[in-house]
């Protein structure tokens, strides 16, 4: 079960950032194996705080700060999040001290969720077949303590995610079925279908950009399987030379994860 914030879904699934966003509503065949049914505010709230705890663990090495929050503080936080009240949110958050720090041998890391869209996959394509996803801590500095850039981090993640054999075969990312149980006693034979991904750094010599000044055209493009791709954070194309730590500090979501969409240009 994957819960994707609606803004991320928009960045991920619209190709030309159409507005208004046209959605197709289906009244039959609810995909209960991949989607949670809406059962009220409480499950959303639980998912939010669960995400916040993971983020706290990644930043600080412990989720204590979140788990020890008084109920009143939790309520205040949730109200601020649902109301989009940045001031109240900031005042509750300040007590959490969510600043990434080194712990033990681990360098300071930020919680990051990356969604990759390789194709639209056509009408009725499921999110699972058309996209790839990872949620993980990512270190913000190199061994020598230099800040890692967003581009550097994304290229590494893209090559790790797209080069591994899997992805094509793991259609429904969901458990169930006796087939799963058969595989239970350890074999990795189910990892075949190969998706080769080369992430090459391309200096784009083709600056034949259309009129209306998209001055943010990246010097160095991201490539997924040799196809140019675009990164989006909160609907904005970030400067790939920006330090990851800076991006996280300024663009993280309410649950302190940094959500990034990388979409192959159609």
């Amino acid at each position, binding site marked *: 079960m994957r819960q994707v914030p609606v803004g991320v879904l928009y960045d991920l699934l619209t190709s030309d950032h159409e507005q208004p966003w046209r959605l197709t509503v289906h009244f039959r065949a609810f995909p209960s194996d991949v989607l949670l049914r809406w059962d009220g505010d409480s499950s959303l709230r639980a998912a939010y705080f669960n995400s916040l705890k993971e983020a706290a663990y990644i930043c600080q090495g412990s989720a204590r700060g979140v788990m020890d929050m008084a109920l009143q503080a939790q309520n205040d936080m949730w109200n601020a999040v649902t109301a989009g009240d940045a001031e109240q949110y900031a005042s509750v958050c300040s007590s959490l001290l969510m600043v990434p720090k080194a712990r033990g041998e681990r360098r300071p890391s930020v919680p990051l969720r990356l969604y990759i869209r390789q194709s639209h996959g056509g009408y009725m394509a499921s999110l699972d077949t058309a996209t790839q996803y990872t949620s993980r801590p990512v270190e913000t500095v190199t061994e020598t303590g230099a800040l890692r850039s967003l581009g550097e981090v994304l290229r590494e993640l893209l090559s790790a995610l797209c080069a591994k054999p899997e992805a094509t075969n793991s259609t429904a990312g969901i458990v169930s079925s006796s087939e799963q149980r058969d595989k239970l006693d*350890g074999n990795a034979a189910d990892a075949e279908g190969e998706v080769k991904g080369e992430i090459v750094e391309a200096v784009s010599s083709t600056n034949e950009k259309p009129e209306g000044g998209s001055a943010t055209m990246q010097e160095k493009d991201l490539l997924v399987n040799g196809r140019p791709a675009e990164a989006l954070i909160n609907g904005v194309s970030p400067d790939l030379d920006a330090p990851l730590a800076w991006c996280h500090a300024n663009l993280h979501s309410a649950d302190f994860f940094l959500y990034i969409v990388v979409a192959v240009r159609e």
Partner: protein
Amino acid sequence: MSESKGNQVIVWLRATGDAPILKQQKVKISANEKFSKIVEVLRTKTKSEQVFVYLKESFCPSLDEKISVLYEAYGSEGRLTVNYANAPAWG
């Protein structure tokens, strides 16, 4: 981002609350599997449809995430410790 040794991860399944304690608490699972695999194993072993799973005694990771990634991020002492309960814990 390196893969864990031998492409299998030792997962330590620890009961929390009044969840049944398993006879076999350590299982080896392919590092390529998703975390949802562990949930499925627990459902089967505890004979219960509803299982709540936690890492670091605090949160449940994305079920779609690969075990190798989670091991790298949250494993220690050569294993990934997973707590399970039959009711929500660590709210």
